């Protein structure tokens, strides 16, 4: 267990908030009441992915349906959306690669995770009935999101390229791509809605992990007990 007193940290570095300063480069350390969950680079990558995703989303939606045409005005019109969308898509895909590389090692599904992501497990999770002491840094749902996002990104990228340069591809490939891009995006979006909800409203204290990079000990104990134990060295149930 490593625990650094807050005062030391403050006086020692003179770099502001001790926890955030720690979080610039380190993960999984306790700083006072807080635990560093995501280091700065991880958060930057995440937000780049998120930003590019939303650019894709808001440039894509007005093209997708005229009902959301008003969104085009955020970017200066539908034509701008059409030009921006594929480039944002490329940026999204590139950022996603970094994100993938960064997290892939931690996203191996354990037996518990597999159980977590069964419908039964998910239901239990959403009903706040999961008192599973074995949830590590990322739960099964988060890992599922990770893999689904990775797969979805690949799908969106490939079909997106076809739609971007349709004349280079045969008709059936084009037609399939329109459908697949549509399907991939809608599932992706639905998933992201859940992701945002869980990361903000549903589980208070989560959002700061992607802002400050830190979470409270209690939060960690509640949501990721195994990880909490690993980081703090506390015993289960202690």
């Amino acid at each position, binding site marked *: 267990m490593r625990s650094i007193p807050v005062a030391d940290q403050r006086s020692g570095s003179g770099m502001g908030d001790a926890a955030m300063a720690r979080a610039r480069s380190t993960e999984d350390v306790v700083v006072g009441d807080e635990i560093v969950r995501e280091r700065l680079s991880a958060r930057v990558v995440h937000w780049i992915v998120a930003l590019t995703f939303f650019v894709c989303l808001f440039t894509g939606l*007005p093209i997708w349906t*005229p009902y959301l*045409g*008003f*969104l*085009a*005005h955020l970017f200066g019109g*539908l034509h701008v959306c059409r030009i921006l969308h594929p480039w944002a898509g490329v940026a999204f895909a590139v950022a996603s690669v970094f994100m993938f590389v960064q997290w892939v090692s931690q996203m191996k599904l354990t037996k518990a995770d597999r159980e977590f992501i069964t419908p039964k497990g998910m239901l239990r999770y959403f009903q706040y009935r999961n008192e599973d002491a074995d949830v590590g840094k990322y739960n099964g749902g988060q890992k599922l999101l990770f893999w689904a996002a990775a797969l979805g990104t690949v799908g969106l990228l490939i079909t997106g390229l076809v739609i971007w340069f349709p004349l280079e591809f045969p008709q059936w490939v084009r037609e399939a791509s329109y459908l697949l891009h549509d399907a991939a995006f809608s599932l992706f979006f639905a998933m992201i809605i859940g992701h945002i909800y869980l990361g*903000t*409203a549903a589980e208070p204290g989560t*959002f700061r992990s992607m802002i400050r990079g830190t979470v409270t000990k209690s939060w960690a104990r509640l949501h990721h007990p195994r990880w909490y134990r690993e980081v703090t060295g506390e015993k289960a149930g202690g």
Partner: protein
Amino acid sequence: MKRRMFLKGAAAAGAAVGIGFDMSRARAEMRQFKIARTTETRSICPYCAVACGVIIHTLGDKAKNVRPTVVHVEGDPDAPTNRGTLCPKGATLKYDIDNPNRILTPKVRRPGSDHWEEISWDEAVQGIARHIKSTRDRTFVAKNAKGQTVNRTPGLAVVGGCTDTNEFNFLQWKFISALGVAYRDSQARV
């Protein structure tokens, strides 16, 4: 983020709709009917011998300060032979009239030279007239070898295309007759 804030965000998105960004209007901004106010001149296609009637549309109303520019050429629907139709050559007459390859100034290529020189119309006309006169005077045959009066100028030849007007042809024949030209032929032969 509080529950309150989350809802606020959703409301903001809704408000954007309310502001009335209406992208759904079916806009078909019509191209202007480009010959609505042009000047029409009836003409005849200069290419083949079907001689289709054409209407040349020029910019401006022929007022003094206007230099007419051709904007469109279309078949004359009244012309009995073509009844408004045209072939691809006729349909591109606009680009023959307004053609960047048109020559614009008189030029001369001096003997032995490898390039053109621009000259004035007066120089050109005087130069040509002098050539014509000296050639005619030098080669004029008043009587042939049999002693018959023939009054011809074998040193001069005049050939002409067949896309100039009847009136020009007639003037050209007068010109030919005035010079006693025997060597004369036209596109009609070849």
